[in-house]
């Protein structure tokens, strides 16, 4: 949305990601704030921030596939798992470095995503959602049964990274690695959407027949979208595994896929900023619910053993309410609020 007085004189200016000096300054300040964050907060909040950053990578990846290309995926959780196991195998079992493990996790997951993306040539909408649901269950089963590689139900213990003599074994030092990778990947995604490839993704989403008529190779761009999205999932999964120092199959079940889908729907489909809002919201929500239910548990003793079930129910209810009352997501609402104040008090 553009307002009066908001002139652009060149296409380059019009395509900028951050369009005003104020936004540029704000984003720079926010990045500096994130750099200083570990020295301000307690370790448990730092841990949550780290999980949010990892979720941002995964959510941006899923949004590229579902929000920008219109291919519904219920298998993001399993793709995170492929990444986590790949990196775990490379670092813990082959003894190679983290710096090889994480990119390799991205590449292997991208390949897995391309394989499971093949049905997208023929299937769309609902059918594709069900196909990806199947891939979720099949991959989960492989995680549990392919014991020589995945460690079966025992899982794998993985190390934290190091460069030369310096080990990133504290949460504070590891946080910086995650922060830098997340920033680079978000920036890459935002830029990707301004290229021919990104516009082709959106054309495929908006009307795939028209896109094909305009010379966009549907199969190529759908598979490419699966590959890019899975690459993001793989990197996020690998970072997650290294942050916990442990990888096992139940960390990547169908529930994780649902949480990621909820992130991008609540944040805003087809919006990079929306994926970030969604990731923040969906990581903070369970923590908040845990605090609330433990508080309730002290005043109503009977409630303690029901806490997990209650949390799940409230989580579900919030998803439902969001979809009914805020179907376009947080990013859209934020835009509306900004527009309101920009034109206040004369909203014409």
């Amino acid at each position, binding site marked *: 949305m553009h307002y009066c007085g908001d002139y652009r004189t060149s296409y380059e200016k019009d395509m900028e990601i951050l369009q005003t000096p104020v936004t540029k300054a704000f984003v720079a300040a926010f990045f500096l704030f994130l750099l200083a964050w570990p020295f301000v907060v307690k370790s448990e909040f730092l841990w949550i921030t780290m999980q949010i950053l990892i979720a941002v990578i995964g959510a941006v990846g899923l949004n590229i596939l579902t929000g920008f290309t219109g291919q519904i995926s219920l298998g993001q959780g399993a793709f995170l798992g492929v990444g986590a196991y790949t990196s775990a195998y490379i670092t813990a079992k082959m003894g190679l470095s983290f710096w090889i493990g994480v990119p390799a996790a991205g590449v292997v997951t991208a390949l897995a995503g391309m394989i499971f993306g093949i049905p997208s040539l023929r299937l769309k909408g*609902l059918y594709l*959602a069900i*196909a990806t649901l199947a891939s979720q269950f099949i991959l989960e089963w492989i995680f549990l049964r392919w014991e020589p590689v995945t460690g079966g139900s025992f899982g794998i213990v993985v190390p934290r990274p190091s460069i030369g003599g310096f080990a990133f074994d504290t949460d504070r030092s590891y946080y910086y690695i995650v922060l830098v990778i997340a920033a680079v990947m978000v920036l890459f995604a935002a830029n990707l959407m301004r290229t021919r490839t990104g516009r082709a993704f959106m054309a495929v989403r908006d009307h795939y027949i028209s896109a094909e008529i305009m010379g966009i190779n549907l199969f190529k761009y759908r598979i490419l979208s699966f590959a890019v999205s899975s690459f993001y999932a793989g990197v996020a999964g690998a970072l997650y595994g290294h942050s916990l120092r442990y990888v096992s199959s139940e960390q990547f079940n169908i529930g994780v896929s649902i949480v990621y889908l909820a992130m991008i729907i609540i944040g805003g489909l087809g919006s990079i900023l929306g994926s970030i809002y969604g990731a923040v919201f969906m990581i903070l929500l369970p923590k908040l619910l845990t605090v609330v239910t433990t508080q309730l548990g002290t005043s109503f003793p009977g409630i303690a053993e029901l806490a997990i079930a209650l949390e799940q129910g409230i989580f579900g209810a919030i*998803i439902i309410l969001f979809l009914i009352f805020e179907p376009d997501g947080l990013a859209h609402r934020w835009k509306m609020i900004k527009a309101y104040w920009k034109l206040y008090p004369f909203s014409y």
Partner: protein
Amino acid sequence: MTMQYLLQLVISGLVIGSIYSAVALGFVIIYKATRVVNFAQGELLMVGAYVCYAFLVQMRVPFGAALLLTILFSMALAMLIERMILRPMIGEPIISIIMVTIGLSLVLRSAVSVVWGTDILVYTPKLFPQETITLAGVPVSLEFVWCFVLSLFLLAVFSVFFKYSKAGVAMRATAFNQQVAQSMGISVKRIFALSWVISAVVSGIGGVLIGNINGINNTLYHFGLKVFPATILGGLDSILGAALGGMIIGVLENLSDGLCNTYFDLSGVKEVAPYVILVVILMIKPYGLFGTKEIERV
């Protein structure tokens, strides 16, 4: 591996498959009329099973009355869900509707755990006789036979309902084209509510049947996940397809599990076999055995 073992696998597969069929039937009814993909179908089954348990065991109502009350409860619940949650979502993209039914499934699951806890509960008194009879040389528990027959009966009733009754024809018309149906004087809103009611009742009865055989606990909703292989195999919008698909998936998962266990020493194939079948079907015949084909040309 004897012939008898194979037969046993097939028969127990058919029994589980008949429950899959009932749930798949409920799923197809909703999908056909409203184009909503219900990820909470298994939860409707679970709620039915628990409510019946509450009436039968906790309140000591005789079985017939308990079943009737369960059906009434399922109807009320379905109407509430349709009115409160699904109606505001009309016109939203598929992904939002999928998500809202997933949210609903979480809420129902949590409600069951909060009210009845997480332990295995058993129906007493048992509804069906406990003897076994011999079928083609294989001993089969009589409750399995009952369960199978009752599921078949349900399927037959609904096939007839859709084919001949006025409401059934109206539902098919709505599925075909909502605007035309509305201009013919069919209340589309009422059809939506009706399809949810029927679906919840069918799933609830399925829940009561399975509860009688295996007892109930809070993982009963897993039945809902088998609905996807079953309906994709049969064709998403076909009643007959749902019935057959459920049975076939039940038999195939049992057979593959038994065979892999004996020959390859590979356990747990049961959990994954239906989904492998699902992917294969999607690759070669995406609209299933009886589904409506959509043809698009550029």
